[in-house]
């Protein structure tokens, strides 16, 4: 059996009901585990490092629904920048970056294991779907 350990990041624009762009969704796609190419990990970490500035003016969510699984390599690369950014965003009264995904999977548990102090708090908010996140942040 052949397996692929490929991870990718796609950035999509988010529009409000009047079709005005209000932010971005960062989609983590594939499998983000030890075994991933270092060059890919570097590229994703570079993109994640920009979030703290982007989220000052735009709504941002990280979509994990197309992520097959991750371990502490993926979790650290993605979640640590979000936690750092959200701590600053909350202080400045800005909207926090949300994670989007199913809470009944090991993807969620991997985050809970690594960041038990922040999980499902204001610093690390989760929403089950893009639609529900948009409803929460745009209403």
């Amino acid at each position, binding site marked *: 059996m052949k*397996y692929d350990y490929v991870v990718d990041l796609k950035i999509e624009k988010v529009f409000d009901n009047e079709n005005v762009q209000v932010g971005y969704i960062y989609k983590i796609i594939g499998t983000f585990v030890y*075994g991933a190419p*270092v060059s890919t990990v570097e590229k994703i970490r570079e993109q994640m490092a920009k979030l703290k500035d982007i989220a000052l003016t735009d709504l941002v969510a990280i979509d994990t629904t197309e992520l097959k699984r991750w371990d502490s390599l993926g979790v650290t690369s993605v979640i640590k920048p979000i936690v750092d950014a959200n701590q600053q965003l909350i202080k400045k009264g800005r909207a926090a970056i949300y994670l989007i995904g199913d809470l009944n999977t*090991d993807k969620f*548990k991997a985050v*809970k294991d690594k960041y038990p102090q922040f999980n499902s708090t204001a610093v690390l908010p989760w929403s089950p779907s893009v639609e529900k996140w948009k409803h929460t942040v745009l209403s």
Partner: protein
Amino acid sequence: MGKQWSVEEKDLTYETTLEKLYNEQKFQELNEILDEVRAEFPNNTTVDTAVRTIVEETMNIINYSSDWKAGELKVRSDFSSGTINLEIIYSGSTYWDPVEKKTTTVIGSTDSFESYKREVEISSGIVHITIKIKLRDQK
């Protein structure tokens, strides 16, 4: 059918991006043998968690314990009719306990198991970590 993976210190290089000893190919191979366990128990969060934890604990031993560097570090996986055996074996006289060091949670909830047994035995210069899981819902 049981599978074994092994690694030696010479296989690994220090990756500054990850701040860890790493070898992309070796960790892909480790994930491949463990993915056969996941494939046998598809969409099972418990199995996903156990498999992820084995990789994370292996990574922790490689990076935080020097004992294993005297020889090989091996991971074995085997499964049959609802029972999974996962083992980490390396030369040494001390066990680097991730729970005690508070670096990771090794299987948080045991709710989904009929039984879950995690043992560490140190004998004749060999550290032997065994995780034996019997699933509640058999295939």
